[in-house]
């Protein structure tokens, strides 16, 4: 019994220690961000391309199908009440407020987050980060900050594209497949979806972008510099991001209601 308590205690302390270190790390990253944006914008743009543009295909394909599924579900339920005109509204709320930011963040963690973590982990394992230290270049600033900023900037854009393509998917199912009147489909959306709903989605995607990028670079930077260590860090990066995104989603939604 004693052993159990001791282990629990140690685990808790270890968790708190890591959490505290993560916060300090986040502060370091954020402190260097403005000067990076101003002085080395080219590095940031390259990373927006890596994290954002290269994720476009997966984001757009997923968005199309998620939107189509929302359209299907909304239509089949709403038609019970002869409210098919509201298909678009149901899909729009689902996409803009919840699924757009959340699924984009999860896909982002899988596609871009893993790439960031393993890249940084391998750079560490092959002494590239120490080499920078020795060349009097701060690797946190030169390597981690542009990658963080790249993800942070790309995430909201990707979420917007996801929602947009998703609406097109819902339109295909609702209007083209089931024959909902195209005018009332879009008119209802325009009348019902408020700017505040869209802002909620934007806020979420900004927070998720920061969280997912921070976790990805943190895990890479703290990976054990071995093949196994980098593999584990990559897995952890996806798992922790997924949990963090869902927890933050709940908290933001609760705060906005």
């Amino acid at each position: 019994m004693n052993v159990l308590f001791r282990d629990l205690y140690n685990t808790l302390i270890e968790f708190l220690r890591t959490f505290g270190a993560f916060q300090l790390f986040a502060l370091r990253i954020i402190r260097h961000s403005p000067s990076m944006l101003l002085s080395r914008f080219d590095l940031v743009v390259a990373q927006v391309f890596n994290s954002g543009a290269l994720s476009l295909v997966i984001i757009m394909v997923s968005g199309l199908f998620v939107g189509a599924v929302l359209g299907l579900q909304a239509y089949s339920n709403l038609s019970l009440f002869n409210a098919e005109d509201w298909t678009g509204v149901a899909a729009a709320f689902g996409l803009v407020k919840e699924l757009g930011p959340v699924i984009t963040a999860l896909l982002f963690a899988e596609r871009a987050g893993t790439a960031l973590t393993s890249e940084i982990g391998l750079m560490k394992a092959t002494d590239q980060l120490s080499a920078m230290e020795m060349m009097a270049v701060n690797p946190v600033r030169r390597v981690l900050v542009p990658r963080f900023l790249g993800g942070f900037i790309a995430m909201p854009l990707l979420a917007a594209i996801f929602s947009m393509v998703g609406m097109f998917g819902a339109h295909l199912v609702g209007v083209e497949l089931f024959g909902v009147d195209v005018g009332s489909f879009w008119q209802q959306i325009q009348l019902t979806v408020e700017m505040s709903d869209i802002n909620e989605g934007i806020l979420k995607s900004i927070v998720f972008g920061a969280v997912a990028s921070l976790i990805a670079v943190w895990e890479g930077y703290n990976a054990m510099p071995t093949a196994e260590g980098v593999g584990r860090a990559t897995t952890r990066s996806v798992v922790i991001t997924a949990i963090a995104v869902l927890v933050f989603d709940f908290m933001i939604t609760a705060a906005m209601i």
Partner: protein
Amino acid sequence: MADQSDNLIEIHDLVYSRGPRRIFDGLNLAIKRGKITAIMGPSGTGKTTLLRLITRQLIPSHGVITVDGVDIATLSQAELYQLRQRFGMLFQNGALLTDLSVFENVAFPLREHTKLSNRLIRHVVLTKLHAVGLRGAADLMPAQLSGGMARRVALARAMVMDPDILIYDEPFVGLDPISMGVIVRLVRRMNDALGITSIIVSHDVEEVSTVADYSFLLSEGKVAASGSPTELRTANSELVRQFMHGMADGPVAFHYDAPGYEEQLLGRDSE
């Protein structure tokens, strides 16, 4: 601040432990200005660790390391980076940045620390690449290089800021005889022509003997012997003889600590 004594780097009473293992236990050594100093020792004596301590990538638990008379433990981050600009370091595996081409790798320190024009950077980089015989490889990516070529590019990068102190971590491992000869001559030539202080960490006795002015032999966290290569060769100490002549028997055990061989084979140790 510039202390013009003979010793550029001095280490006093250095203690450093990793986990329960004490790697350095009261190490004292001094590195002379403008000379090539070799630090030798059997694997696992912490030679690379010593380099990382000298450049403050690691912090000792006890003891003082001075560079040019300044205790490096007292430097702020900015001062440390300023000091490091005077160092060039060649890593064991080269440590080239894999997302940049050979040219950009060599240009990296210039782009980060200077405001030179692109034309001037190009000029400097090509000169350095030419010195290591790889001007033609400027557009290749590090993944396309062989191990020896990567080491030479890394050497060009280490030299590009014209450092006062060049540190080589196992520069001769895994090189073919031709590149080895080239690098040995390059080390010598740069040292003499540019007045650089060089520190070579190696266990390659033959090569080091041809190039070093002075050698330290580390063992068990201390300097076991020091002197010019010829002095070391003729030294009386058993440890030095074993190491310099590559003998299996002697004070340095070839076998890692283990229970008795016979006991273990007969399975008695698990009882």
